[in-house]
């Protein structure tokens, strides 16, 4: 890029190269993992995946087989039947639609609001910036359970019980999102680009639209997926404001499968499998990007 390096430039460049370096060369030289390391990793892989695989095994059996010793280790023939009954019993079709709406709206709103706020914190100078950023980080520490009671009272007062907006509204703000986008834009958006747009007379909103959004697109995608996963899996708040008969999300519907006097375990597992499958698919496809996103959000905590 630069052909003539001033001494200052060279100094600025040097530590960068050192920090980046090849990933493989970390942890004291080029240490290859030995058999012990692979064994431990294999153990963790099995531990991570076994409950998921076993959910599918249990969902493919009938209830009697699950109440025998030893428990089944391999798939039976009832998978499709169980999935179908669970789908109908738990009203999962509606639940999927509801959850997609809730998670989709929340994720998109969080991403847009976080990007513009993150841009302001990363690149704009204004009075009170550091204090406000501290507040953002501080809010990450406030437990959500604390606000559940007044939120419930608000929702009850508005007559929004069992309505999707009751789930969506409290979840469209994320301090983590602001923090995440700020970290990304600090590195990914060169000041020169903004300055050049300024010289051309672009207003702040035009800068956001034409420069910040395109530059932030990869991080926006990752944040969107993370927030989608989080909202999809959210349990406490939907559990409080939605009933299983009203407008359940997938988690509320799946949790409801376990109730009743003699619950059919294979049906419960079929429901749990259905509730998890869409996200596991997302992970199978975008896993690498999501991992990268979590790791990116983690640095400089």
């Amino acid at each position: 890029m630069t052909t003539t390096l001033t001494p200052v430039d060279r100094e600025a460049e040097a530590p960068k190269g050192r920090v980046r370096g090849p990933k493989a060369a970390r942890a004291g030289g080029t240490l290859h993992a030995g058999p012990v390391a692979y064994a431990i990793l294999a153990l963790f892989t099995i531990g991570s995946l076994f409950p998921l695989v076993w959910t599918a095994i249990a969902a493919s059996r009938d209830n009697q087989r699950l109440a025998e010793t030893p428990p089944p280790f391999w798939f039976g023939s009832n998978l499709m039947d169980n999935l179908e009954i669970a789908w109908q019993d738990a009203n999962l079709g509606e639940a999927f639609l509801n959850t997609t709406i809730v998670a989709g709206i929340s994720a998109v709103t969080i991403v847009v609001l976080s990007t513009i706020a993150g841009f302001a914190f990363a690149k704009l100078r204004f009075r009170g910036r550091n204090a406000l950023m501290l507040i953002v980080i501080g809010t990450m520490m406030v437990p959500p359970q604390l606000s559940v009671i007044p939120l419930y009272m608000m929702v009850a007062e508005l007559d929004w019980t069992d309505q999707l907006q009751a789930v969506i509204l409290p979840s469209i703000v994320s301090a983590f999102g602001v923090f995440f986008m700020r970290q990304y834009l600090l590195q990914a958006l060169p000041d020169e680009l903004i300055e050049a747009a300024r010289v051309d007379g672009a207003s702040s909103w035009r800068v956001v639209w034409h420069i910040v959004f395109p530059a932030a697109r990869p991080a926006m995608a990752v944040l969107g997926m993370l927030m989608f996963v989080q909202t999809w899996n959210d349990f406490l708040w939907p559990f409080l404001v939605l009933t299983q008969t009203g407008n359940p999300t997938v988690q509320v519907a799946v949790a409801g499968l376990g109730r009743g006097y003699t619950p059919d375990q294979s049906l419960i597992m079929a429901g749990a499998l259905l509730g998890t499958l869409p996200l596991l698919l997302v992970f199978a496809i975008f896993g690498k990007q999501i991992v990268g996103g979590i790791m990116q959000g983690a640095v400089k905590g």
Partner: protein
Amino acid sequence: MTTGHDTAAAPPAKEGGAAPARPSAGAPVSDQERRRRARLSRRWQRDMRWSPYAFVSPFFLLFLAFGLFPLVYTGWASLHQVELTAPTDMNWVGLRNYTRIFDDDFFWNAARNTLTIGVISTVPQLLMALGLAHILNYKLRASTFYRVVMLAPYATSIAAASLVFVLLFGRDYGMINWALGAVGIDNIDWQNDKWPSQIAVSTIVIWRWTGYNALIYLAAMQAIPQDLYESAALDGANRWQQFLHVTLPSLRPTILFTVVVSTIGASQVFGEPLLFDANKGASGGSQHQFQTLGLYLYEQGWVNQHLGRASAIAWTMFLILIVIGIVNYVISRRLRASS
């Protein structure tokens, strides 16, 4: 790159740029032009000054509505008698909600359970995550595969995970007791005995969050400069000593961060014990053996319908967290001072 210096100075130059036009002509056109530029410049300055606030205000407005206001209002409600059936009728009772829950054995039981479940879920979880991150930091075949696989539990919901573990921890036909039986250990009643049930609930938490924390540690490890290891190796430090004297100190802020986040998470544990209960009730087992503060809050507010008392529990939890936060801060300062 090279133009960066010019552009930084450009805006003021542009404002001044209107000036040379005046002596050359002095015509009304130039006057108009000057006013136009002045107007543009004023607008530009207003934009520069206020748009940052416009960009951050949605977050803060929403945070006020759904974060700060509820927090304060919970404190206010905790000083009143409020019933779930009529949440707007509030009768001032002062601190009575607090004295009542402090006199309640179930509160102290829930507090103890929350503490023990928190410890037996957080400590092994973070230690394993640390070890796992260390291994992932080696040169590995298929390293992305392990990272994605370890994150799969994070993609699994509390509801689904809890229901699966209920079956795996079954007393008579569960997989775990069957495996223990194979090595000669008698059936353990994971749902009804105090310690086994708490270990089982913690297992669900550990399973879901270990991989996530490992990735956070791994990210921090990869930011440690290589030459720290090189100089440690020159000083004759072996791998373990390098981990102890280079990796761990560099990770201290990250470890502190995960400890704080996990502590908050542990104080909130709700879905796992709710769904682990065979009766799917809020009592945390027949003997309240794994009732957490989160469950106790739900029981008081939504089962017994005393929202005021539930608010008092919520605020007590908040105050405990603040104390833990302060202790964390003091410890980290001490650690920093001693190093």
